[in-house]
């Protein structure tokens, strides 16, 4: 309210024409600091009840219009702690095998031979006929000549086995043999792998294929 408006309201008050709401409004104005002396007298006449009621209503109105600041971080922190507690303190999951898992697949074709073929092919042995060499050279490298002969024999054998090996077919569901116990499944698979590995080793050692360790080859 402006100064003039307050003065008009004071005159209305002294004439007994103000309502309760107008008197509360007047009380808010005259109760401020640094007001004229006449206004202080009016404040005294209005009385502490009227002035305090006006201030009370003003404060309550300001609280309603003031936006409430809601802090979310305590709730987020509590939710994180609760989630962590549930994860770490919750009961362990019981792993139940609802369906028997597929343990191995037996194909009609010989899978061992397939594995050995890939092993041998990775070496890249080329079947070559021993060429006629000078007597001087053959005398100098008899070892190399023997190695070449071995390679040629191995490659012939592989080619023969390729012809003999039946055609591969894709794995079907009927090939699957389910296992009831996962431990037995694992043991069987491990044994199978071991056996394959032993066969590969035997094959390599029988055929005398050179290894990657060239120092051992000379021994």
């Amino acid at each position, binding site marked *: 309210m402006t100064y003039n408006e307050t003065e008009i309201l004071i005159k209305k008050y002294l004439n007994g024409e103000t309502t309760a709401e107008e008197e509360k409004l007047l009380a808010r104005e005259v109760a401020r600091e640094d007001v004229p002396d006449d206004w202080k007298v009016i404040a*005294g006449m*209005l009385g502490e009840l009227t002035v*305090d009621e006006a201030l009370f209503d003003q404060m309550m109105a300001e609280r309603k219009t003031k936006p409430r600041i809601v802090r979310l971080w305590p709730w987020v922190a509590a939710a994180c702690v609760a989630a962590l507690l549930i994860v770490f303190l919750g009961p362990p999951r019981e792993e139940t095998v609802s369906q028997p898992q597929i343990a191995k697949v037996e194909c009609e074709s010989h899978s061992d031979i397939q594995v050995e073929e890939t092993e041998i092919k990775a070496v890249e042995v080329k079947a070559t006929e021993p060429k006629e060499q000078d007597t001087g050279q053959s005398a100098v490298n008899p070892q190399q000549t023997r190695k070449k002969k071995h390679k040629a024999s191995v490659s012939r054998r592989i080619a023969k086995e390729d012809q003999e090996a039946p055609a591969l077919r894709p794995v079907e569901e009927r090939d699957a043999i389910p296992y009831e116990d996962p431990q037995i499944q694992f043991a069987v698979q491990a044994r199978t792998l071991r056996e394959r590995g032993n066969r590969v080793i035997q094959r390599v050692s029988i055929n005398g294929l050179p290894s990657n360790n060239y120092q051992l080859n000379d021994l």
Partner: protein
Amino acid sequence: MTQEEFEHIAPALRELMLSVGRSFFGNDDDAEDVAQEGLVALLRFIDRMESGVRHDALAIRVAKHCCMDMVRKRKSSPILALQASKGRAVSGKMHGDVAPPGCDTGASPHEHLEAKELYEAVNEAVKHLKPSERRLFEMRQIEGLELDDIVKQTNIAKPSIKSIVSAARKKVFAEIKERLRT
């Protein structure tokens, strides 16, 4: 109103004051303080309170005054504010030691003295009014009754009430100005 009549209506008035205090402070401890201070203040007005009349409006005004009084005291005294935050009761009086409204209790002693002088001048000027003028003046100023309510209670016509109240206020205003000038 007699003390027995006041004791009869005190529980209902206390509930009103509790609700006012709870809505303002938001906790029951401070609301209990408001209700306690309010009942004590109303007890001082018992002589002026008429029997057979509802004093709900007066009780609410007194409760609001007690709330503001507590706020002023906490502002002036950090210790009281700390005690209030811990839920302890804050005692105070409606009259006497409490500075009148419009004067912050944190004000200088001179301002506090000025406010007290004004307060006493108003009381003295009201005492010098005629009984009819004083009654209507207090009904408007203290009880906060509207003209219609005063008409119902006094059976006086509204224009008459207006003129009587106007005359009373002008007298009080002039006397206070004279008193403060001297």
